[in-house]
């Protein structure tokens, strides 16, 4: 909401020339859904402070968000945007102080290159990542950081801290450098949806960061956060930045999972391969992937000739849309299309469409159901769909202590309802096998640790094959 920049450079009121804003005036510059007031709370030769005060219109802010923005979430209407320094403040800098940001000073051009002592105060700055993030962003650029974190509500100390800081930054540098740092790093701290991310943001970022971003140790994070939710754009920037280094910039498919499961990128591949191998060995031809998500397993299975027909089912229609896209379903030939189909469905309702399959795979699915609902899942699969082979994988909870970033007792993923030890998983699976006449065996997925086992565990259920001629 408020950004003040104070200098003690002598004479301090040179700041007015540099900013192209007369210290005696209160100026207001229009922004989308509001305005920024620029004024000087103190002006003297010894000390001069300029303030940028955002005056956002909360009603217009929602209405201007447009069709994508108005997704009818209540958060839209009661939100922190009018009170914080976010990309809206960057917009205020760009609009209100464009000359200074671009290194122009008509009246005293000699001041442009002069490093001056500056103290910046930001009220308030939302920071995802806490003080450590502030340090990692500003310390490498030479700032001294003084940050005060505010509690969520002093009346409820048990609620803990908020993500809002009042931050003071001190450094001696040119005004243009200072503004370009603030312009890029304020939204990076915030890491929220921007109101203005567009293609030309790439150019803006490259331009504002040209002197310092390439050597900044946190550059990847800066780029990704700055271009929040614009993964295609993010790759473009990383490619431009890293073009001389030959760095592979392929991102993992699921950022959320990467955040939650620190080492899961290779393990998920291994999990899928392990499941594929079980399906191959069993000679399954018609396979259903229950909870297929974005279709990674299906993609892997598509390449195997053995699998004559693949059905992917997921409860999330959105995930299916992504799967359709990733599998390039629209561009498939008729022959390919005959081999694969995606359906919207649920594992807690019996479903005739799931009958008649050789095998069913449930890769990291069961832990997304509340434990009491597993009974319905069990019936859907083992009582009604009855495939010859069922392969189920699930996290091995014992392994969790091996994740350095995972606090004890916390689950790996925000939507996991439980994570089982090997004993719990095996007890559950064995009881099912007994009830429905399957044989079950267990295998670790990933390298097995002698104490806690592998990262993930797999149960393979098979029905005894009827012997022709014995009947």
């Amino acid at each position: 909401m408020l950004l003040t920049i104070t200098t003690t450079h002598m004479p301090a009121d040179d700041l007015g020339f540099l900013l192209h804003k007369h210290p005696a005036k209160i100026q207001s510059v229009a922004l989308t859904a509001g305005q920024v007031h620029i004024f000087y709370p103190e002006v003297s030769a010894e000390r001069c402070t300029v303030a940028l005060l955002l005056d956002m219109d909360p009603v217009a802010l929602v209405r201007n968000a447009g069709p994508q923005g108005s997704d009818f979430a209540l958060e839209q209407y009661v939100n922190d945007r009018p009170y914080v320094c976010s990309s809206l403040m960057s917009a205020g800098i760009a609009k209100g102080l464009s000359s200074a940001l671009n290194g122009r000073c008509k009246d005293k051009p000699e001041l442009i290159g002069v490093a001056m002592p500056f103290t910046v105060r930001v009220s308030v700055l939302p920071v995802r990542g806490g003080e450590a993030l502030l340090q990692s962003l500003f310390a490498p650029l030479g700032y001294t950081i003084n940050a005060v974190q505010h509690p969520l509500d002093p009346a409820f100390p048990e609620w803990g801290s908020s993500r809002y800081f009042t931050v003071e930054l001190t450094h001696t540098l040119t005004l243009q450098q200072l503004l370009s740092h603030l312009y890029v790093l304020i939204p990076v701290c915030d890491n929220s949806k921007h109101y203005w991310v567009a293609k030309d943001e790439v150019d803006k970022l490259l331009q504002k960061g040209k002197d310092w971003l390439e050597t900044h140790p946190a550059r990847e994070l800066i780029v990704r956060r700055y271009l929040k939710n614009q993964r295609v754009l993010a790759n473009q920037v990383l490619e431009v930045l890293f073009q001389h280094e030959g760095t592979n910039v392929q991102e993992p498919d699921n950022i959320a999972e990467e955040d939650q499961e620190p080492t899961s990128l290779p393990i998920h591949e291994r999990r899928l391969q392990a499941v594929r191998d079980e399906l191959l060995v069993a000679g399954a031809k018609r396979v259903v992937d229950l909870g297929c998500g974005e279709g990674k397993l299906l993609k892997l299975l598509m390449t195997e000739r053995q699998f004559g027909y693949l059905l992917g089912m997921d409860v999330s229609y959105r995930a299916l849309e992504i799967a359709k896209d990733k599998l390039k379903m629209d561009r498939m030939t008729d022959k390919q299309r005959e081999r694969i189909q995606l359906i919207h469905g649920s594992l807690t309702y019996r479903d005739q469409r799931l009958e008649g399959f050789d095998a069913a795979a449930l890769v990291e699915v069961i832990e997304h159901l509340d434990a009491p609902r597993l009974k319905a899942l069990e019936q859907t699969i083992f009582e009604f769909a009855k495939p010859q082979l069922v392969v189920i994988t699930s996290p091995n909870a014992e392994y969790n202590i091996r994740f350095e970033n995972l606090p004890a007792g916390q689950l790996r993923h925000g939507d996991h309802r439980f994570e089982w030890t090997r004993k719990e998983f095996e007890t559950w699976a064995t009881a099912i096998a007994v009830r429905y006449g399957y044989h079950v065996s267990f295998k670790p997925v990933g390298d097995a640790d002698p104490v806690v086992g592998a990262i993930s565990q797999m149960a393979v259920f098979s029905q005894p094959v009827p012997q022709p001629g014995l009947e």
Partner: protein
Amino acid sequence: MSTNSHIHIPAFCLVVLIGATGSGKSTFARKYFKTTEIVSSDTCRGLVSDDENNQTASADAFALARYLVGMRLKNGLLTVVDATNVQEEGRKDWIRLAREYHCLPIAIILNMPEKLCAQRNAARPDRNFGRHVIPQHISQLKRSFRKLKYEGFRQIIELWSLEEVEALSDIVRDPLYNDKKAVSGPFDIIGDVHGCYDELATLLTRLGYQYNDNLWNHPAGRKAVFVGDLVDRGPKTPAVLELVMNMTAAGSAYCVPGNHDAKLLKWLKGKDVQARHGLEESIDQLSLQTQEFRDRVKDFLDGLVSHYVFDQGKLVVAHAGLKENMHGRGSGAVREFCMYGETTGEIDEFGLPVRYNWAIEYKGKATVVYGHTPVPEAQWLNNTIDIDTGCVFGGQLTALRYPERELVSVAAAQVYCVPAKPLYPVKEVGVPLTMQQESDRVLDIADFTGRQIVETSLGRNITIREEHSMAALEVMSRFAINPQWLIYLPPTMSPAKTSTLKDYLEFPTEAFDYYKEAGISKVVCQEKHMGSRAVVIVGKDENAISRAFGITGEGIGTIYTRTGRAFFSDKAMEQALLQRVNTALHASSFYETFRSDWVCLDVELMPWSAKAQALLQSQYAAVGTAATNALKDVNVVLQQLADRDPNGQALLVEYQSREQEAEQFIAAYRQYCWPVNSIEDYKLAPFHILATEGKQWTSEHHEWHMENISKICLADPAIMQTTPYKVVSLNDEASIHEATEWWLSSTATGGEGMVVKPYNFIEKYAKGIVQPAIKIRGREYLRIIYGPEYTSPENLERLKVRGLHAKRGLAMREFALGVEGLQRFVDKEPLRRVHQCVFGVLAMECEPVDPRL
């Protein structure tokens, strides 16, 4: 033939016209049938090729014709095929379709002279077939005559000349034999008798029938319906036959044939049958009777109709039951099903055919009553009931009274026959689930996908759009509790129309006006608790829950949210709270008063912070702390500015008022938060008694609910809270004024607001259902909905433009669905039918509506 001859055909059949080109089939069809009943090959040729005479389009045209005929027959509509049909090849398809849809195929042959056909074709310039076509058709037709019966036509009507066609005045449609829709009973439907005459006589007596002049009759005109298997195994088959024959002849009973009756008929007709499975007893007993009696039995059994459809189609009786697509239809397959049910062809360990229980998948509207398979107890399953309780095996002879749906049974005097399979299975421990509950353990997805239409008793058919049912499926699957608990989801509630007062967005006046305009004179105003809406189900013990809900091992009840999610992640806390409620219900004699051992309550559960902790912290507290901390700094620099520049004064004033609004915002949400450390930190405020055993209580007015609830609350005031309320007469200005003042004073001290409801739970007016409740939220409370600064005049002015139409529509539809779901549950309907309503509410909630309303 006379000039006004009639022909008779069944009211539902497939009429296949047969005749050469030019024989006048289309004219004939148009004269006696509705245009929509005729599927013509020429029309189909036109539809697929733009040319009705294009013979090269025949393959596609017939594919279309078959499709049309199939669709019509599926829907039970008489259909006429207008094509030459002179070749067996072509007729085969129609026979096959008729069989598939259990419809009688009828042939009507127009056997016209060649000359006439040729003349007619010559008159039509578009028909220039070769000269050979007509003679060829006629010779094929002649060759067909003998074959038609063997091809499967059940009736063959030949018209030999133009005169005969012209003399025909009408084609009369006779109802099918099984069609007794006009007969509405009341009935007493009686299970498999198997020669148990004594038990039958006792049962009839108990049902109120009287025996006079060799005939059983009911003084009130009730009709007996026998589900068949009158004979075999038991001691007095001839007496049973005599009784039933007399009753049916006198019109006081109906009877459908069982498989045993059919086999006996074969024997009576002199066919070779093995005298097994009790037939030997019948043969022995009948051999002692006269030939005349045996002939009467033969004619009686021969005349039995496979099944009956009674009471406007609401009741179907068949020996072994009947699938919906066979109701009121006629075919060999229907007869077979009626007699034997669905078998898989396998033989079980007792040497009996494995029966597939068709009733598990039955979703029809008609009640189906049947016998055939002896069961230890007659139980409803998906609106069907097997009333063969194995009298001859030493069980009982059971009758179902319809429409009362009461069961009346007489125990067998002895075991007349030892069953191959034990009649009573080994008892399991605990409360056994009913067949319905057993079959309801898993729902079928096919019942909930796609566009759904739910019929509700509040007079509206409610449509659920496909995209919303998809969203609901995801929410239900990922987050909801066991659907057996979910008998009700609360409807959304609309606020009052926007106030015309300058400083208010909502004010009581508009709610009172709404109800007044709807013609309502009395309303109830209830204080709105600031908690979370929840549904509480609690039973005396786990057995009570198992009996009523079919749920075992999930405790004595549940507490769930508006979206069907478990309210508590801590199961022990949930059960402890439910135990307190249970104790209060006991203490207040609720269970005795309501003759129920469970209850479902609509409640508000406080504190709000208990459930909405995440929302509170991430939204409200976050905004509050951001706003106050930022504005504090802002006002420091603005003060500095104002001190040296008077032009800064205006900004200072503005931002000082914003700082104050931010503090009011924090004060507003803090009202509804308190830490929860023990069970007594929770407060439960019930406001509706939704349902108890066999009854849902939306028939009672709100004061009744408030009074009965306050009795429960008094039993445990530490966790149960009554809801302050006022009854307001809308014709009395003083009463309205008092309620308005009440709202003003309560919201001034931090109250959330109030809910205004019509005095009666359900009120209807010309436009349908009146809004069941309207909320009027307090000025300060709305700050946490519309944002800290919503009260500033320029914001309020813009916020006042809000449309309520969508919200009101949803509230009404969700309310109707809610009441319907409860009714279906207390009526013990299949879970599928209850879940449809609950699923519907959830789907409606997936519709995008302004969440601030």
